[in-house]
């Protein structure tokens, strides 16, 4: 599965939102109705799915779905 699809699957499940709302510019808090603890849980799910650790300082900069995918891309590339 492509990275974006994997991310959207996790976000869809964690936040219980419709597929159509999942676009790169969607803001987790404003557009997808997440609260601060939802974001923490989402980050934890992403850590498990991609086998990476996201420091709190990095997590604070994640606002949109696009932020998530580009962050994972960068992290996975560095790891490889």
């Amino acid at each position, binding site marked *: 599965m492509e990275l974006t699809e994997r991310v959207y699957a996790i976000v869809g499940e964690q936040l219980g939102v419709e597929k159509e709302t999942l676009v790169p510019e969607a803001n987790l808090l404003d557009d997808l109705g997440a609260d*601060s603890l939802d*974001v*923490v849980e989402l980050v*934890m799910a992403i850590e498990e799915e991609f086998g990476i650790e996201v420091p*709190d300082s990095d997590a604070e900069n994640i606002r949109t779905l696009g932020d998530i995918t580009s962050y994972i891309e960068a992290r996975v590339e560095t790891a490889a």
Partner: protein
Amino acid sequence: MSVLIRGTGSAIPDRVISNADLERMVETNDEWIVTRTGIRERRMMAPEEATSDIVTRAAQRALEQAELGPEDIDLLIVATCTPDTLTPATANHVHRNLFKGLSIPSFDVNAACSGFVYGLEVAMAMLGSAGYKRVLLAGGEGLTRFMDYEERTVCILFGDAAGAVVLEKSDAPGGVLATTLHSDGQYSDLIQIPGGGARRPASPYTLAQREMFVRMEGQRVFKVAVQSMEQVAKDTLAKVGWKIGDVDWVIAHQANSRILRAVADRLEVPAEKMPTNLEVRGNTSAASIPVLLDECNRADRFKTGDKLLIVGFGGGLTWGAAAMEWTQTG
């Protein structure tokens, strides 16, 4: 040797602080609080009361249920992070109330919200190698005295309560089978009362900075809490050779409904095996586990032989778990 719980007791202050009450004190609302914490109300001690007073009442109830008197106890341990005084220990104040003329040792354990689980392992060791026979172990907190009602993310969480158990060395089967404790000081500033100690003593300055109140970084705590509660639960199950499916009751520190749900999901524990009183008690730190034990015990939910997994987590950061087989109290 086994260690059995002979009696349980709790003391819940009368005054209810509802979410609506808090709406009048800080910028918040019921829906915000409930979705993020699962808490609808918490209790507050009367102005003339302190932590030792509610601990004393909880201890008396545990003794009554065990059909024992203060003279039958040879050690008193109080888990608290909201003591009556910096020194002497809250346990010494409880001693004055309850153990007049008896020179049994008494001391506090401060492991914040993990205090009861920490106290349990200390008590186990004292009942083992140190030769004590019966320990009164209490967890009590007067957290509302340390709430900053200008800090809306913290003051909504905490409540006052006390719980106690009488632990007895025995040859009968069951009781506390294993305990596991951990801490990680790299997170020591995530939940703290910064002022009033030797680092930042009470002064007009620290008072003005509101340093006498609890400060917490909830989001950072959340992640460590969920991961470490899951891990310590699994490690403790492995020690006694139980699978999670063997466990009848998971008694977890009542921190926040979102943490409890995440832990339950990860451990695959169904909600009906995880009793909760968070909605009406709030987070009562070291008191939450013994209070929940007492409420379940007095509601006859535990049967002899039931397998209990107790899981604590709190400031420090500290965490721990215990596995026990329930035995009839009284």
